């Protein structure tokens, strides 16, 4: 059986938990950032309460917890620039795309033009995206 030495797989990290109430959002993000070094084809999906992870203006000072939300801004630099947010999940929660952090990446193929990383997709589109993946991790 042929073994590929350097194989690129499609990784999807699915995020369904809100931030701060549990550790999954924070530690999940750490996996994505560290995993970026492996140069796989990576994307993230935010479904259900996971969409709250991308909410702007998070301030954890009084709660006395780590505010890890700035770390999402680093994703673009790590070439993680496909952040799929489920439209139905936003709507159910009374959120719009304007409530989310303006996360961007720089496309070197287009003269480093700054582009949005967040892509709001429908449930049906997300279902298709799931099928395309090789490895799916859930946080």
């Amino acid at each position, binding site marked *: 059986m042929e073994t590929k030495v350097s194989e690129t797989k499609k*990784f999807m990290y699915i995020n369904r938990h809100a931030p701060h109430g549990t550790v999954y959002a924070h530690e999940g993000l750490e996996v994505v950032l560290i995993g970026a070094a492996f140069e796989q084809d990576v994307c993230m999906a935010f479904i259900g309460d996971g969409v709250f992870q991308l909410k702007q203006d998070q301030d954890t000072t009084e709660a006395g917890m780590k505010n890890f939300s700035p770390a999402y801004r680093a994703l673009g630099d790590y070439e993680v620039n496909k952040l799929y947010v489920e439209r139905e999940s936003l709507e159910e929660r009374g959120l719009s795309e304007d409530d989310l952090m303006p996360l961007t990446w720089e496309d070197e193929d287009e003269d480093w033009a700054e582009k949005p990383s967040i892509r709001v997709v429908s449930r049906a589109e997300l279902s298709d995206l799931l099928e395309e993946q090789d490895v799916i991790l859930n946080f």
Partner: protein
Amino acid sequence: MKFSVMVNEGPYTHQASDTAYQFTRAALAAGHEIFRVFFYHDGVNNGTRMTAPPQDDRNIVNRWSELAAAHELDLVVCVAAAQRRGIVDADEAKRNGKDGDNIAPGFRISGLGQLIEAGIQSDRLLVFGD
């Protein structure tokens, strides 16, 4: 088939570690290979040798250690999650100025890269958690 398994919750509080163990055992019995079992989030708590559960209940930590010994399994506890939760081997104890270590036999502490590698190298990666 080459499997890797991810365990996201600690022993007893959730069934995740139990199900992961039973799946791993069944896969081995069917002749499959287990590339790695990776413990993350509270799953790192499966790697402490300090548990002393009641005699009439399963010993989750020992079960993993014994399975690892019998099948030369690679049980990896994530270093970042372990540091947060106090799962320590001798090196980590020294590095962080702790007065003891508690890692169980058959487990080793390593980085998140081991999880990504498992995803790349395995045919199937299964996640057990809450």
